[in-house]
């Protein structure tokens, strides 16, 4: 690996100052499962590596005052999977437990997965479905944006190498709600999504759908929030026909590429199937059923 200077700042301010003073020649290190591989394979160059794991607030995972969830940017997948406050955010857990294997989950962070900004990132459709807000620090102050505005293209995000992701804030969950994330890969584990979907459903007292969010992954330059199809669910009583119809609408929003892992047509068909499945799973979970695709 190329030579660099290692920094382990103790505060967000210190990290942001380092980032600014090293003039674009630094890289932030959280779990390192992407960054260290990129440095070793010369896909990225850095004279300075700034390890953010010594900043206490970035490793915190807690319920917020409004009943939502605050996730520090250096929280690992393992930490998330074993945390009580995160347990109701099932779509995000679905994603966290299939990001690599156990060795990767011990190190990889949800924040890093978002900052790496891969269109196929597993956590991003889950974050979109759960309505996450991103807080990031820059030399000019702290900024926030909706997670749907954070990634701007493959490997790119609004921070443009000048900011530090501080935390992700997830909306409070409705009393009768469920969420799910699923991806398609050609094998059982340890692969990158060919297509993926995340869904969140909140039911009103009369059993109709009060809130719905649907997100699509790996079928565009960034994950897609399928707003219109999700809105078509609102006020409706859940039924197979309704889900079928909404899943077909959602699939029309997919703009995938042809590559060795799947054709455009295949990914569009997968999007339809995965949206259908995640909506079904989210509804079952809203009804209080435990639906688990993997041992946790």
């Amino acid at each position, binding site marked *: *690996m*190329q*030579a*660099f*200077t*290692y920094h382990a700042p103790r505060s967000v301010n210190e990290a942001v100052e380092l980032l600014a003073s090293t003039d674009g020649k630094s890289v932030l*290190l959280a779990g*390192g*499962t992407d960054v*260290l*591989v990129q*440095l*070793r*394979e010369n896909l990225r160059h850095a*004279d300075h*590596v700034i*390890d953010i*794991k010594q900043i206490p607030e970035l490793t915190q995972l807690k319920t917020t005052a409004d009943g939502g969830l605050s996730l520090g940017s250096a929280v690992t997948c*393992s930490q998330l999977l074993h945390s009580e406050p995160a347990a109701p955010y099932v779509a995000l857990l679905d994603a966290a437990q299939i990001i*690599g*294997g*156990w*060795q*990767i989950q*011990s*190190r990889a962070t949800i924040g890093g997965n978002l900052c790496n900004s891969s269109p196929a990132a597993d956590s991003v459709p889950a974050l979109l479905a759960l309505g996450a807000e991103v807080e990031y620090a820059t030399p000019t102050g702290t900024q926030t944006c909706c997670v749907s505005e954070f990634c701007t293209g493959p490997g790119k995000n609004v921070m443009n190498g000048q900011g530090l992701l501080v935390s992700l804030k997830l909306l409070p969950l409705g009393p009768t709600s469920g969420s799910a994330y699923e991806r398609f890969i050609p094998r*059982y*584990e*340890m692969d990158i999504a060919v297509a993926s979907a995340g869904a969140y459903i909140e039911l009103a007292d009369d059993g109709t759908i009060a809130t719905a969010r649907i997100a699509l992954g790996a079928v565009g330059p960034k994950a897609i929030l399928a707003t219109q199809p999700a809105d078509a669910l609102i006020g409706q009583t859940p039924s197979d026909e309704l889900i079928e119809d909404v899943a077909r609408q959602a699939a029309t929003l997919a703009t995938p590429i042809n590559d060795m892992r799947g054709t455009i047509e295949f990914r569009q068909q997968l999007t339809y199937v995965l949206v259908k499945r995640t909506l079904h799973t989210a509804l079952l979970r809203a009804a209080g059923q435990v639906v688990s695709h*993997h*041992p946790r």
Partner: protein
Amino acid sequence: MPGKAPAKMAISTTINGQNYDFLCEPRQSLLEVLRDSLQLTGAKEGCNNGNCGACTVLLDGEPVNSCIVLAVEVQGRELTTIEGIANRGELHPIQQCFLEGAALQCGICTPGFIVAAKALLDKKPNPSEEEIRFALAGNLCRCTGYDKIVRSVQAASERIQAGSTPKQNPQPNQTNQQQAQQQQ
């Protein structure tokens, strides 16, 4: 390489219950330092990019790929490597069961599998087959396939549960061959 190399850093850590102090460059991976500086060569370099799990070690009890951990990151932390699994020359039940179950061929992946299996059985002493396969998904074997490995972890789980001390096999090689023949 432009400029001079950054200064080496002094790192203190605990490996297999022993204190270690070493100097390393920031760019060195934990795997490089374990193998090249500390002569702990049990962890293997397979892919060197976090895919194969041959370099698995436990960092504060959690399995990690040591090829994608910087050595400077283990300051003050606790590590367990394959060298720390056996107890004073007596094989751990997982090691013994891998031997008896012929759960290896070339052996490169074996230290990683054993360390990951130890992490699993420490957390979940009686895992289902699905749980074993899921926990070991980050370890790749290109020789035997996974059935013998999974069966050996199941056998180790039973042995640990039964509380029996592992028996030393006087002729492990012969037993391996006999078992391999039986299974073919």
